[in-house]
């Protein structure tokens, strides 16, 4: 059991290189195909279109010809909550414990049979990573054959979200049990569907706690709380890496990487002059 795997709990996270991301959408489709996400005839109202992984289009706001755009894939951030104690914005508000924070993996679960659709978690999540089944999912006649047994298809009236392909973690643990080393999940044994699908390998997924994993080497998370904002823990020591809305103290586990300063600046809100102070911060200095 990983609960007592000599307390080296995992902390699965992801870093996405926005300079490599081409906005092609492979991650969106791979995620939908892997997790039995339904589709409707008209999905053009992006406010009730269920895409666990959504690719946002960012712009530097300048006018022609200096305008620039970048793409930002946004899965569920699996927030660790203030001080990384597991009180994610959504977990702390769900009235029926339909979503909880797995301290052994750092993954925020969503249980479709417990959720009764009050949608409070959707209001609490600042990343809009939670989707509600406004319609009863229906697959055209014959297409239910491609549904995967690893993820239970949902029903109308409940909230669903990215699970970091937790079923792949379950399969990896089964394999580890079978081969006798139940507490050691190899890096390549548990990779999410979007990571494996990305044609430009822009997404790197792994255990943030394990220095041997690529994601840890890129992000170099700082275990101590940030002196200027004690809610923030695990801030990246790589100046090119940032997190979305880090100042809110949600402590997301999805990091983003970009060489372009205007892209990094879109990660959070800054008052006048704040950005220049921390523009190329190295390590623990953070914005107050």
């Amino acid at each position, binding site marked *: 059991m990983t609960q007592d795997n000599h307390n080296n709990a995992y902390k699965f996270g992801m870093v996405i290189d926005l300079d490599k991301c081409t906005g092609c959408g492979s991650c969106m489709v791979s995620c939908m195909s892997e997790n039995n996400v339904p589709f409707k005839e008209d999905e053009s*109202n992006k*406010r*009730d279109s269920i895409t666990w992984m959504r690719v*946002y*289009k*960012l*712009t530097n706001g300048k006018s022609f010809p200096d305008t620039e755009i970048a793409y*930002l894939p946004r899965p569920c951030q699996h927030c660790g909550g*203030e001080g990384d104690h597991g*009180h994610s*914005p959504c977990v*702390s*508000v*769900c*009235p*029926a*414990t*339909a979503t909880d924070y797995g301290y052994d993996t750092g993954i925020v679960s969503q249980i479709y049979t*417990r*959720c*009764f*659709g*009050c*949608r*409070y978690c*959707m*209001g*609490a*999540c*600042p*990343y*809009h990573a*939670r*989707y*509600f*089944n*406004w*319609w*009863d999912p229906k697959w055209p006649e014959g297409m239910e054959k491609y549904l995967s047994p690893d993820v239970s298809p949902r029903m*109308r*009236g*409940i*909230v669903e979200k990215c699970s970091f392909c937790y079923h792949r973690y379950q399969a990896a643990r089964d394999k580890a049990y079978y081969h006798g080393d139940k507490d050691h999940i190899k890096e390549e044994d548990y990779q999410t569907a979007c990571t494996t699908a990305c044609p430009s390998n822009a997404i790197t997924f792994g255990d943030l706690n394990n220095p041997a994993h690529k994601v840890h080497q890129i992000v170099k998370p700082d275990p101590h709380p940030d002196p200027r904002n004690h809610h923030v823990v695990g801030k990246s020591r790589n100046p090119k890496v940032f997190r*979305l*809305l880090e*100042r*809110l*103290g*949600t402590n997301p586990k999805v990091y983003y990487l970009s060489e372009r300063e205007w892209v990094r*600046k*879109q*990660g*959070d*809100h*800054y*008052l006048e002059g*704040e950005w220049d102070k921390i523009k190329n911060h190295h390590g623990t200095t953070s*914005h*107050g």
Partner: protein
Amino acid sequence: MDSALIPEGAKRCSLPKFSIGMAIVGAVLLWGVWAMFLCWFKGLNQTNMNDYYGFALWIWADLAVIAVGGGAFFTGMLRYIFNIKELKNIINFAVIIGFICYSSALLILAIDIGQPLRGWFIFWHANIHSMLTEVAFCLSCYFAVLTIEFIPNILENRQANKVPFFHHLAHNMHGIMVIFAATGAFLSFFHQGSLGGVAGVMYGRPFAVREGLLIWPWTFFLFTWSAAAYGPSFTLLVTKMTEVITGKKLVKDNVVHLLAKISGWMIVTYIIAKIIDTIYWAYVTAPSLGFKLSHFYTDNSFYGYWILITEIVICGIVPGAILVIKSTRENPTLRLVAIILGTIGVCLNRWVMVLQIMAVPVMPFDTWALYIPSWQEVATTVLPVAYGIMLIALAYRYLPVFPQEKELNSVKPITESE
């Protein structure tokens, strides 16, 4: 025909006239019920809500109806705990309004959740850290208290009073109503507060988040306070409306002035606290997260500074001032203006604390989300209003709600018959 049921010495309109009125309101009720079944059987795609607007008109209706229903617990507390005798003439009506508000809230919640059949999971698998769990428990309990407070009034119906058991039951319940009112106040303090906490704890939403005391954000106390402040105003408003519709004077002026005075002072103290909280939030909490005040009130087609000013100044300071100063309080038109503004104020505060939270973009590259309710949502929000009107009409017709009614409307003084 139904004269046997009408309280002694009370003059009511003829049954046909009454039934026509009830039929009209009943039709609106049925329209709401039709929308309710649509939402239950076809699912919440009947509404215009979406993933940006998980909370919308219904949650606002919930919060607003509970806020204005605060009159029941506050008047009850004043009457039974602070022993203000004059309020016994309005406590019955306050309880009826409270009962209607809380039953409406529970009905709207039953329609609003995606899986009504699993609604009881909120009790069974309760997450005690969630404000909504606390709301669910205390709201249901307080609804029970309101039912208990409403039963004696029902049992005082002429026919019901004839059954000895009912007669004794009503009498005994009056005896220990103090305990029920105290428990009710305790429960109300928490769930009114938790409804405020629902918004205040969302640290992912800079527009909503507030610091606080221990686990309760300041909005917790502000919501209770505003419910207690504006609740009596709403009670007075509905009393005034009932008096206008029935064409009779139902409550003596000294009771109305007293309740208005209390409500006034509560509004004034609330508004001061609200202003302090807003200033602290606008200049300390939000900027610490990188948000200027203009982020929440500009470049969108609806939410502007006007909503802040209306809520605090026009519907806060003005009604407070009117109800505090004796001369303006006792001037009927000014008092009516004040209680109407007050009620609008609390509804606006609830609107802001639900819908503007959803509208404000949080991620830098996100956009404002605006939303218009669908007819089904409007119908199911009008449904409780219609049901409330019918209940008040029935109660007014068949139950002795206003003790002073006979006295105020009798042509010659008659001795106490019983």
